[in-house]
């Protein structure tokens, strides 16, 4: 027996070592197997870390909660799939968005302004270099926008209203508009990562859109170091332009991002001080957050986190009886959101305002309109509204029927395995039934749900895909976008048609974003339509999930603290405080 032990141990070790060191995947030959580039090897160190062996703990930041699969590519043009850090750490945008001050802050741009109603001029910073040493110029910006003209590009829509993006000189970009879209343009300014012309102009369209882009060359403060199926590692770049231009320096030398493990593993890693930040929803986190555990949240008490997006109950407005605004209003009134907030989430989320606008946009809520047309949870009111609208329980089962007497039976779908949403859905179903509306919660698999949602083959669905942004325009675009296509992939899943509302949304986009009063005027009209029609019912605000450990790094963003940036590395959130967080951290000396 002892012999076997002695024999097996080295064998196992050798086997594991081969597993970890071998590139894992033999690179496949033949273009068909690997669209737009060669297959990504599982582990491909671009260069060895400065010293062999381990990253020093007090120079490394470990985070998780943004990636659910292995790092697929480092291509900023592949919006939905690129690895965390591709945009934000390696590639950068012209501006960042400060969610506290609610304004754009210049980043690669030194400044930007409208010179007339249809011309926007960006002045770039000088001294910015790509990490291969080449200078960053206005040509790169113009080139990047040119890539948007490729069919199937994630930002092809900008060319519906852009006329031209030109490099006037090395530091100046002039953007000409066919139609000025002020809100969308502001949004665009901190979303679009700029890529280097000298490396990208040779790529074919497919490679640009979906290529792997190994060894990404960007202007950012970090360089890609290595990745494996469960992690991606970046190393700080010591010649980053921001050190002098912005007087900022990210503190962690190594940035290790871990593909989201189970909550149990994440919490275990937290307790062992092996993890510094988790950006996924971890149920029950508020139970252990606090001084004793060293686990930090933005607020020390409920709601613990800032709000990131609104969860909406989207009714399919093409189906009976959901095509009736009065019915939708009764449904909205019947939903027991307080129970969801309290029981399902333990108050780590907040109930949404009737308009659904995030707390960050509170100023845009027209209280007069809300007072007149808003709704709050009240089962009795919901019953009365149903009765008033002509929905009666004709067969005596306690549930109302359609006006023509046919049965109402609505299915609310949430993706299987999204346990908080599944539970919320059953609360909604129960409370709707109490008011007399037959709603059943169902949990199809995610892809099946997507198909149903996008094709309009559903009754009710919960969705939260629009994030906090520079302008509430993004929310009204989400609610009212026309035309309704055969497949609705990103907005207006409820297929609500209202030309007047869409005209107003476009009108909102035509108001300069520094004209807050002008925006409010349009928004107030949109809110009146929204509350009258309820094409989507706001439920609660999901948090900017950000659970940080004070074990190794401290000075995380906090309400009223010196650092107010939300610590979150989701897509586009590096530009909304995630990157700034890195510059604010301090090592915990003790």
């Amino acid at each position, binding site marked *: 027996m002892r012999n076997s032990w002695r024999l097996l141990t080295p064998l196992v070790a050798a086997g594991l070592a081969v597993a970890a060191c071998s590139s894992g995947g033999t690179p496949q030959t033949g273009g068909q197997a690997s669209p737009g580039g060669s297959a990504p090897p599982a582990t491909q160190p671009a260069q060895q870390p400065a010293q062999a062996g381990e990253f020093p703990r007090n120079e490394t930041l470990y985070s998780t909660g943004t990636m659910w699969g292995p790092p697929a590519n480092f291509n900023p043009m592949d919006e939905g799939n690129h690895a965390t850090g591709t945009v934000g750490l390696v590639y950068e945008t012209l501006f960042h968005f400060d969610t506290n001050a609610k304004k754009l802050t210049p980043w690669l741009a030194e400044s930007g302004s409208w010179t007339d109603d249809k011309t926007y001029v960006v002045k770039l910073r000088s001294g910015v270099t790509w990490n291969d040493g080449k200078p960053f110029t206005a040509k790169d910006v113009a080139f990047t926008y040119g890539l948007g003209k490729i069919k199937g590009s994630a930002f092809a829509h900008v060319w519906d209203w852009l006329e031209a993006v030109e490099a006037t000189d090395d530091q100046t970009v002039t953007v000409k508009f066919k139609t000025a879209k002020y809100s969308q343009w502001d949004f665009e300014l901190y979303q679009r990562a700029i890529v280097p012309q000298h490396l990208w102009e040779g790529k074919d369209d497919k490679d640009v859109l979906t290529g792997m882009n190994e060894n990404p060359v960007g202007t950012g403060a970090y360089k890609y170091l290595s990745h494996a199926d469960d992690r991606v590692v970046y190393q700080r770049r010591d010649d980053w332009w921001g050190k002098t231009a912005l007087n900022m320096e990210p503190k962690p030398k190594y940035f290790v991002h871990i593909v989201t493990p*189970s*909550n*149990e593993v*994440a*919490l*275990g890693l*937290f*307790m062992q001080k092996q993890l510094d930040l988790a950006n996924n929803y*971890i*149920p*029950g986190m508020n*139970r*252990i957050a606090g001084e004793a555990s060293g686990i930090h949240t933005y607020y020390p008490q409920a709601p613990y986190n800032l709000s990131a997006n609104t969860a909406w109950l989207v009714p399919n407005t093409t189906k009976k009886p959901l095509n009736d605004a009065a019915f939708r209003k009764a449904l909205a009134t019947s939903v027991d959101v307080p*129970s969801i907030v309290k*029981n*399902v989430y*333990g108050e780590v989320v907040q109930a949404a305002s009737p308009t659904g606008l995030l707390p960050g946009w509170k100023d845009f809520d027209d209280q007069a309109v809300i007072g007149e047309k808003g709704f709050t949870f009240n089962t009795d009111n919901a019953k009365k509204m149903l009765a008033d609208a002509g929905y009666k329980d004709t067969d005596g089962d306690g549930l109302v029927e359609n006006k023509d007497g046919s049965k109402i039976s609505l299915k609310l779908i949430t993706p*299987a*395995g999204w*346990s908080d949403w599944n*539970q919320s859905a*059953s609360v909604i179903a129960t409370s709707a039934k109490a008011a007399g509306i037959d709603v059943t919660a169902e*949990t199809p698999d995610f892809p099946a749900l997507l198909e149903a949602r996008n094709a309009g083959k559903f009754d009710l669905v919960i969705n939260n895909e629009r994030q906090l942004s520079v302008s509430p325009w993004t929310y009204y675009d989400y609610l009212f976008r026309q035309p309704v296509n055969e497949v609705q992939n990103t907005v207006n899943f409820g297929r609500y048609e209202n030309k007047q509302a869409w005209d107003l949304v476009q009108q909102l986009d035509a108001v300069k974003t520094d004209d807050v009063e002008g925006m409010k005027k349009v928004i107030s009209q949109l809110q009146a339509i929204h509350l009258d029609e309820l094409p989507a019912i706001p439920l609660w605000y999901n948090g900017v999930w950000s659970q940080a450990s004070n074990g190794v790094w401290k000075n995380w963003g906090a309400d009223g603290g010196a650092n107010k940036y939300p610590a979150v590395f989701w897509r586009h959130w590096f530009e909304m405080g995630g990157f700034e967080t890195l510059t604010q951290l301090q090592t915990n000396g003790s």
Partner: protein
Amino acid sequence: MTALQEITTREAESASGPSRDWLHFAVRNKKLVIGTLIILLFLCIGVFGPLLARSGSAYDFVGPRMEPPSSEFWFGTTLFGQDIFAQFVYGVRNAFMVGLFGGGVAAIVGMVVGFLAGYRGGWVDEVLSMITNVVLVLPSLAVLIVVNAYLGIRSIPAQALFIGLTMWPWAARAIRAQTFSLRSRDFVDLARLSGSGTGRIIAREIAPNMSSYLVMMFILMFGGAILTAASLDFIGLGPTEGVSLGLMLQHASVNSALPLGLWWWFVPPGAAITALVGAMYVANVGLDEVFNPKLREM
């Protein structure tokens, strides 16, 4: 499930018919008595527990969140304020259901295939054995994942059925071997000479002579079905409706019960499965000793 192999290959000596005084030995066999008592205890929990639990769904938010065990909530509450005792008793009840139904399906299919193959021999045996071996070699978890992904298992009986349909080859193989050795015995020949049909001979002559063996087989299938169900539940392939011990484990794990200090959520379902299945194995060995004098304690 691991204890199965010991019975699959044993020669027919145990099938020479149970001794008539087995009851005498049964009540004196410690293993059998202890095992049976534990099983009965859980049976009582499963049958009567739900009467003590709160009415309504076991998933209702009935209490404060994360309450440790108390006089009001005997097993405490979950992260969401659900009553763990209620989930537990329904979970135990459903464990028996999965065991009975899953083990039952496996036993029935296994018996049909095993008896037929063993008694008829020839090409019937060839074909049935081939099928048996194919199903046996296919890793059952993988098949269940596929079947589940394909059809979707929504209810606990459906889950039990699928488990039964992948577990039967164990039984079939063992029963075939036993039948094979019995079919040339005198009493079977006699029955055949008197003109009895295949079904009748199997039912009247062969099955009774290996009844003890069949009982033990069923017990092992029962335990195996519970363990398999728990594994399936844990990787998210459990029923979407209903409560089970495996689902409790999965929910507790997904919601990080241990790191959050909610041990009362994570420990009971696992402990119950261990105790119940362990008791079955112990009782099984006890039975074996009762039926086989050679095995009895010194």
